[in-house]
């Protein structure tokens, strides 16, 4: 009986510590030790932070690994009424664009800032795919600090990939379009003639992180899908995958899949910098928004820029080179030494690996097979290190470990394949559940991968979790790659649709984080540094109320003299100076979100009362034993009423006035 049960447990893969279990004939079963490898005991920290794009949610999520615990969802491109993002007066400017206020976007890729090709823990960047923008999230606060819009672009997909000292993050347009401006009203069928690609280079200040659209490179009209910087020996170069070299403008699934080979575009950005210095760029009139959040005023501002410098790759022949790549390449990934560039042709039955040295030789010896749109095309064989034959179906993305192996995702055959980069030999494969897109090896895009795990981000989960109606959560799967064989050890659901993600050791991010905003340094124009500074001020039909919150009261908590139609601004300062004590603020009937105010911060909720009556306001974030007492009342009188404006706490000032 006992023996039988042990045998059964082994078969089920629920093994006891110290016993190992290898079921025969399937590599998909979760085998011994998985629970041990992913269990982070209560009160213990995870080993790694995992920054995961939210896809169509527009946000970025932060998970702990190996536990798969969700730690935070950072609002980036989509409004978030829970955190007041895009609802508070201070954050509304962050979502401004040349198209006005845009409350949603599609965040596909994340990029951690680097020094010497290694993660430095300062910032993480994200891209907006729909209305092209790049965001910078400050990892001192895990909040979005800056968003810059990209002119001349559409479907900003090959972004925000960075160089190895984050000199630049790049953004390539996936949908080529005519350049912005009056000349863009053209027939769609004139694609070949009028549609152009633009690759944006956004410089990043080493100290402050401040972004600037340094220049754009104009290219022939194709679709730029993904990108990676060169590193070490190939530092100074950038590689982009492109498809739709057919330049189709309708029914792309057929018409953009005809050519046997599309391209990897190699960009010599150091050369581009030289041309820029030499004044070879053309100043082009455009309009784009640049939004910055100021940490001392706790307020975002929008600035509109009207010009961008464009370098034309067809005129300046030695910036860009095309390398033929079978067939409609998606991922384009560079290994840790910077020597090998893997193009993942999503419709190809092989994986080509290009050599940086060979590309340099081919350029020097002019081994070209012609030009495409005025750009030299290097001979395929001249740039090729070799091909991985029959690796799987639908290759998409490749990440690397520190031991010379690559891990490629295969969407159609739903698997991760491990192969040896030098020898081009497949050494292991594991199924994913299901339809894997991006992969992440911690540090897998850097010079020094941390390795240990590969995480697969899946598009389809079907039967993996308890069902939740027609829409199911998408998922991530964690594999242990510390041995010869990849081992599935965890599934966890994700927010939105996970695309690319990056991960790195926790201590890179824990050491610089803020616990509070120092109230002494708060320069918000409507701050109240203490209850003595709380008040209500009328300016015409605008009423500014300076409030403070502390466990467990709002000051003032009795406000009278507000009238229907007034624009009321609640400027709420959180007086707490203690970690993890935000206060929330909400008022009945507001056509708005709530505020969630961090310790030492001031944020503002705009409210236009449309009815008379008594409107309670309260703290929404459970803060103390007397949280339920943390409330107040605003009296709204009819327009033209002569009830005086009063704001008080402890005694009702309106009553006192009446008695006098």
């Amino acid at each position, binding site marked *: 009986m006992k023996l039988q049960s042990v045998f059964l447990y082994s078969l089920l893969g629920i093994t006891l510590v110290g016993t190992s279990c290898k079921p025969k004939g399937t590599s998909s079963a979760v085998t011994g030790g998985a629970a*041990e490898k992913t269990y982070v005991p209560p009160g213990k920290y995870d*080993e790694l932070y995992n920054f995961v794009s939210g896809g169509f949610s527009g946000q970025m999520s932060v998970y702990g690994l190996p536990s798969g615990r969700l730690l935070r969802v950072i609002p980036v491109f989509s409004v978030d009424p829970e955190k007041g993002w895009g609802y508070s007066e201070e954050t509304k400017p962050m979502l401004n664009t040349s198209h006005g206020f845009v409350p949603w976007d599609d965040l596909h890729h994340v990029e951690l800032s680097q020094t010497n090709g290694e993660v430095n823990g300062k910032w993480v960047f994200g891209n907006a795919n729909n209305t092209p923008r790049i965001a910078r999230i400050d990892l001192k606060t895990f909040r979005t600090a800056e968003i810059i819009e990209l002119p001349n672009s559409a479907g900003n997909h090959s972004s925000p990939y960075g160089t190895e000292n984050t000199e630049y993050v790049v953004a390539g347009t996936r949908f080529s379009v005519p350049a912005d401006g009056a000349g863009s009203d053209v027939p769609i069928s004139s694609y070949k003639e009028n549609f152009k690609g633009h690759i944006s280079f956004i410089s990043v200040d080493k100290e402050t992180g401040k972004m600037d659209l340094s220049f754009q490179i104009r290219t022939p009209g194709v679709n730029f899908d993904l990108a990676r910087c060169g590193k070490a020996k190939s530092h100074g170069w950038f590689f982009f995958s492109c498809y739709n070299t057919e330049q189709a403008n309708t029914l792309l699934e057929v018409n953009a899949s005809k050519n046997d080979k599309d391209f990897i575009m190699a960009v010599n950005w150091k050369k581009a910098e030289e041309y820029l210095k030499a004044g070879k760029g053309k100043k082009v009139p455009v309009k784009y928004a640049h939004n910055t959040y100021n940490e001392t005023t706790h307020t975002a501002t929008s600035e509109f820029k009207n010009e961008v410098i464009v370098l034309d790759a067809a005129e300046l022949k030695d910036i860009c080179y095309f390398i033929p790549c079978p067939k409609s390449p998606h991922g384009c990934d560079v290994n840790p030494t910077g020597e090998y560039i893997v193009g993942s042709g999503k419709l190809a039955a092989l994986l080509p690996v290009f050599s940086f040295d060979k590309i340099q030789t081919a350029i020097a010896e002019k081994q070209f097979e012609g030009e495409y749109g005025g750009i030299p095309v290097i001979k395929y064989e001249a740039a090729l290190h070799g091909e991985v034959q029959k690796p799987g179906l639908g290759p998409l993305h490749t990440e690397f470990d520190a031991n010379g192996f690559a891990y490629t995702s295969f969407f159609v055959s739903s698997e991760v394949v491990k192969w040896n980069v030098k020898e081009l030999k497949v050494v292991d494969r594991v199924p994913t559940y299901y339809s894997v897109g991006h992969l992440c090896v911690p540090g897998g895009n850097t010079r020094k991968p941390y390795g240990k795990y590969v995480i697969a981000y899946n598009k389809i989960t079907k039967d993996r979790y308890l069902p939740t109606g027609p829409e199911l959560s998408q998922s991530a799967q964690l594999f242990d790659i510390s041995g010869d064989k990849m081992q599935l050890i965890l599934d966890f659901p994700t927010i939105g649709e996970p695309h690319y993600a990056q991960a790195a050791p926790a201590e890179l991010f824990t050491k610089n984080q803020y616990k509070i905003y120092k109230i002494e340094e708060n320069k918000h124009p409507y701050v109240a540094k203490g209850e003595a500074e709380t008040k209500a001020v009328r300016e015409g039909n605008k009423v500014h109320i300076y409030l403070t919150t502390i466990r467990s009261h709002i000051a003032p908590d009795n406000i009278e003299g507000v009238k229907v139609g007034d624009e009321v601004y609640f400027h709420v300062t959180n007086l707490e100076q203690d970690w993890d004590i935000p206060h929330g603020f909400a008022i009945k009937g507001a056509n708005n979100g709530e505020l969630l105010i961090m310790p030492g911060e001031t944020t503002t909720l705009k409210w236009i009362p449309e009815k008379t009556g008594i409107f309670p306001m309260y703290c929404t974030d459970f803060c103390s034993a007397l949280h339920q007492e943390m409330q107040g009342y605003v009296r709204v009188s009819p327009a033209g009423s002569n009830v005086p404006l009063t704001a008080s706490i402890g005694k009702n000032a309106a009553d006192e006035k009446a008695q006098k």
Partner: protein
Amino acid sequence: MKRIVSFSFAAACLFALVVVSCKGGEDTNTSGTNGASQETPSANNSATSANTASYDPKRGEGKFDASNVKVAALDESMVTKGDAIFKTKCSACHKLTDEKLVGPGWKGVTGRKEPYWIMNFITNPDAMIDKDPELQAQLEICLVRMPNQNLTDDDARHILEFMRKNDGAK
């Protein structure tokens, strides 16, 4: 407000502390060394079964003691600085009379407590609330743990001087 804590009450508090812990020790986590990579996940520290044996209720716990806190004739420039800090960081919960608001009124506190106890408490409230019988009794009345308002050592000294002035020191 003055409260005489009977011996049995204090003992009950101590006992309760052993059984109930309010707060995990926060320095036990060195990120990067997680449970998953350890052979035997070490038990989280049990500092909060408060090690009260070594706790000195006269001194409190923290940086300050009789050797590094000296009070003499009232220093008005310190009082002014203390007043400004009080307005921003303390006045929302404390009155200058003996009336309780969220926390107890400040009147008379410098007569009841040593200067270094006050400075320890306002710079290190969490550790002391976990261990000090009188603070435990106070918590039962106020039900809100005094927040750590991130005062610097100088801030704490200035607050002390402001409290002394409030209690009539010259």
